[in-house]
């Protein structure tokens, strides 16, 4: 039993750190967010060059077959620097393709960096419940015809291909009758309304009006998409935990530094016991969140679906708790500066807040944890 990173993982992390130190400072990030595109083609090119897009793609499609612990390393570094590029959206899209089988050409294009992806899973009424789907796909000759709306699709307007959940049967909240589709962004009948999120990431609302899809647009099996959807969403929740851990580490370090330098009443404010204890509590939250992020990293690739569900729900809940506590306290400890746009702390706070609202918030995952047989069955 050990918690050490392997040599390749250390190399990936170092390469990312070097690139971020040079090209993705807080000021450079600020300029990227303010640009019309909201993302940076140079940054994307560097991520591709560093092998990040190839990392999770299977070797048969030109990737490195990286597992969740490899992604832990990468997402943590991206979280530390609050990188706003469509990386998570792309690798999550690729994960759905991987889990569904087929779509080798798309996976190859992800590995080479030509293809960015996004996942259109949420709807206005669904809140965090991914099975609550009104978007419908009807048989259309050999293929399908897609109608409906998806909301707050992260990087929905930057993607070349979208993973879209739709109902091909069943009632609004049934697990049966769900199908996932790979939909080209330029398909006729697909309209995008793009905007910027409070965390600096781009997002879009999507409308599908009679979008015609070929038979092979289906990911996995038509009508049996729930298992795939849930499995992929757990993977995404895991990636968010890793990113949140990186963001919390950076925010924690910045806050600690501030406590040691900021003077009030003639001493560094870190000399005051009330603030010391607050910082100690933040540290305890950080350690507990780190433990859960590591646990989910190890369990995501496992074959035991029940265990994966339970751990993913637990991790997303616990990391969400830590993210809220550390985010709020960091802002408080920074005093007036903490609530300004000028300081990085407020940007970390915003990203940590939106991570909790993405792919299921704390309440959602706590309820999900409670519903698992592993919770109800007493040991």
């Amino acid at each position: 039993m050990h918690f050490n990173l392997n040599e390749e993982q250390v190399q990936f992390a170092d390469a990312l750190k070097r690139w971020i130190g040079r090209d993705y400072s807080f000021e450079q990030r600020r300029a990227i967010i303010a640009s019309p595109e909201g993302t940076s083609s140079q940054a994307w090119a560097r991520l591709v060059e560093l092998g990040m897009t190839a990392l999770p793609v299977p070797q048969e499609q030109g990737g490195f077959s990286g597992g969740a612990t490899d992604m832990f390393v990468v997402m943590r570094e991206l979280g530390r620097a609050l990188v706003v590029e469509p990386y998570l959206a792309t690798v999550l899209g690729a994960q759905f393709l991987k889990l569904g089988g087929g779509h080798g050409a798309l996976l190859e294009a992800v590995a080479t960096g030509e293809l960015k992806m996004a996942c259109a899973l949420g709807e206005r009424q669904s809140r965090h419940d991914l099975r609550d789907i009104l978007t419908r796909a009807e048989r259309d000759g050999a293929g399908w015809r897609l109608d409906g709306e998806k909301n707050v699709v992260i990087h929905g307007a930057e993607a070349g291909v979208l993973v879209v959940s739709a109902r091909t049967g069943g009632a609004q909240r049934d697990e049966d009758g769900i199908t996932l589709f790979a939909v080209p962004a330029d398909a006729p009948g697909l309209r995008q309304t793009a905007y910027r999120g409070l965390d600096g990431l781009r997002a879009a609302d999507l409308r599908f009006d009679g979008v015609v899809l070929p038979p092979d647009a289906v990911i996995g099996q038509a009508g049996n998409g729930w298992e795939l959807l849930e499995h992929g969403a757990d993977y995404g929740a895991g990636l968010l935990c890793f990113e949140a851990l990186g963001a919390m580490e950076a925010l924690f370090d910045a806050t600690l530094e501030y406590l040691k330098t900021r003077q009030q009443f003639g001493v560094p404010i870190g000399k005051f016991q009330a603030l010391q204890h607050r910082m100690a509590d933040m540290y305890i939250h950080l350690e507990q969140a780190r433990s859960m992020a590591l646990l989910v990293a190890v369990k995501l690739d496992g074959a035991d679906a029940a265990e994966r569900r339970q751990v993913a729900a637990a991790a997303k809940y616990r990391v969400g708790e830590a993210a809220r506590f550390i985010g709020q306290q960091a802002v408080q400890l920074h005093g007036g500066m903490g609530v300004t746009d000028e300081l990085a702390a407020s940007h970390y706070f915003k990203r940590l807040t939106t991570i909790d609202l993405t792919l299921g918030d704390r309440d959602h995952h706590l309820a999900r944890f409670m519903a698992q047989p592993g919770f109800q069955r007493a040991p």
Partner: protein
Amino acid sequence: MDLHYSDEDLAFRDQVRAFLDSHLPKDLQAKVLQHLRLDKDDFVRWHRILARQGWVAPAWPREFGGPGWTALQRHIFEEECARAGTPRIMPFGIDMVAPVIMAFGSQEQKARLLPRILSCEDWWCQGYSEPGAGSDLASVKTTAVRHLDADGEHYIVNGQKTWTTLAQHADMIFCLVRTDASVRKQEGISFLLIDMHAPGVTVRPIIMLDEDHEVNEVFFDNVRVPAANLVGEENRGWTYAKYLLGHERTGIAAVGRSKRELGLLKRLARREHKNGRPLLEDPLFAAKVAALEIELMALDMTVLRVLAQAGKAPGPEASVLKVRGTDIQQMLTELMLEAAGPMALPFDAAYLEGEQEHSVAGDDAAAPLASYYFNYRKTSIYGGSNEIQRGIISQMILGL
């Protein structure tokens, strides 16, 4: 990263399980699982069963009678004991004074005292705290003045210790005593071993809020202690005391016991009903249980992460384990109390002491839960209060 136990570790776990199955007396196990009060015989009985197996001092080196286990094996052993519901091995001899004697004691002390600790011939208690020195241990006032007379060199000890756990059973006490009042307060302290049966030692019970007699005041009135009972050098006791405090690492989190109690909490919450449904299906109650279970999962991983650095010097990370571990223990007792509901109200000392087979109120599971809840308020206070631990984290880890 690899979180799997090796085949050797799994085989070790099976070996421990098989031993506990066959050697843990059922009546002792029942008392532990039911939260009844254990008497001295209960503790000594289990201590001697483990001692016969050579397992009573998992952390001791082989030369002194330890089993030679790895840190991970010790962790597995603790977990399995907790799961099975064994009585605790009282830490005062095995885990506290023994490592100090091994590290700083004389050959004579090692040869005389360590075998008696292993066999439980001596029951030890801890003489650190005083009425004026709780978390601020460097303020101890109990004095030890050195004399030489016809019977040889000895100390005359005067003063008072308090919160002395199970001193009513004890044969020996290890004390921090002041041997030099003229220097900086940390530099005038010595580490002295005192016979509890010596003339001038008085033990007075302190009855706690659960009406249990677990701690005591210990008074020393001109107690004569042979100079041979000084551990290490005079006035170096503070160093030894700190060594002792840093010795305890992962066991302090008590993850194994909390896992067992979580199981009990769920069984209770399934048995009790609210609005005609099992309490565990009540969303408000279940959410509290679930949040606690996740907290325990995280602590379990945190402990394993600390274990993975085994071999490094004991560090302040134990403070994180203490704060979280005791918070979780307290929350568990609180939820058990809530699960029992009004049935937790009756107080039945005779049942708790094992003097009758069933509780007066007729709910044996619920009867001890209020006492358990009240008793466990101590955990965030003893061993350096959780506020002190936060101070250690902020100063030693964060450098504030």
